[in-house]
């Protein structure tokens, strides 16, 4: 079992829809969570990060963490074709070998927003 899991999709929605992207994790010690967005043939870029349980909002994007369920969500309101990308959740964790921080990524969910 991977430490952070996502449905690979693709998730297809019409423009204007509310999108819900989800992530589950196995280690209850994970505390910080990030969402990276990756456009086709590009590198991932940080979209949002959150630490505590609850919601964090940034424009059309809302990140939600439920630590009791080990569940992370990213909501996109009024989705646009330009939101079409792969969304990766990630959490920082100490490397077993050296203790330095590394990012553990989920498998990513591909989102397609059609005009």
């Amino acid at each position, binding site marked *: 079992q*991977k430490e952070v899991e996502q449905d*690979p999709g693709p998730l297809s929605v019409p423009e204007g829809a509310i999108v819900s992207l989800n992530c589950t994790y196995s280690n209850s010690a994970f*505390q*910080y969570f*990030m969402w990276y967005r*990756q456009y086709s*043939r*590009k*590198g*991932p*870029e*940080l979209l949002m*990060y959150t*630490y505590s349980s609850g919601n964090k909002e940034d424009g059309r994007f809302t990140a939600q963490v439920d630590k009791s369920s080990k569940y992370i969500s990213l909501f996109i309101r009024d989705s646009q074709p330009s939101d079409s990308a*792969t969304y*990766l959740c990630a959490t*920082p964790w100490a*490397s077993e*070998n*050296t203790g*330095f*921080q*590394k*990012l553990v*990524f989920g*498998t*990513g969910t*591909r989102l397609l927003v059609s005009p």
Partner: protein
Amino acid sequence: DTAVSQTPKYLVTQMGNDKSIKCEQNLGHDTMYWYKQDSKKFLKIMFSYNNKELIINETVPNRFSPKSPDKAHLNLHINSLELGDSAVYFCASSPKVDRVGETQYFGPGTRLLVL
């Protein structure tokens, strides 16, 4: 004004060959990383360097040898390439290694295809 750059963008080669990928960041960051993204978009860390010093080595075959001549550059040399090495390799950097959840900035990726 590219932040994290990689060369080459595409690499097609035969099994058994040796190849190198170069990465440079002009962000003044201390820490650099190599990631491998497989065909299912799963992104996994391979190595990390902090100020030219190797700090993370995640169970990568020793055919892969990273090298950091200075903190702005991190190269990856791969010996005796195998079919399973086909993937997209991403370089990334972050400001400091010891801040939890530090944002990582990714390069555009190098698409390696081993025939």
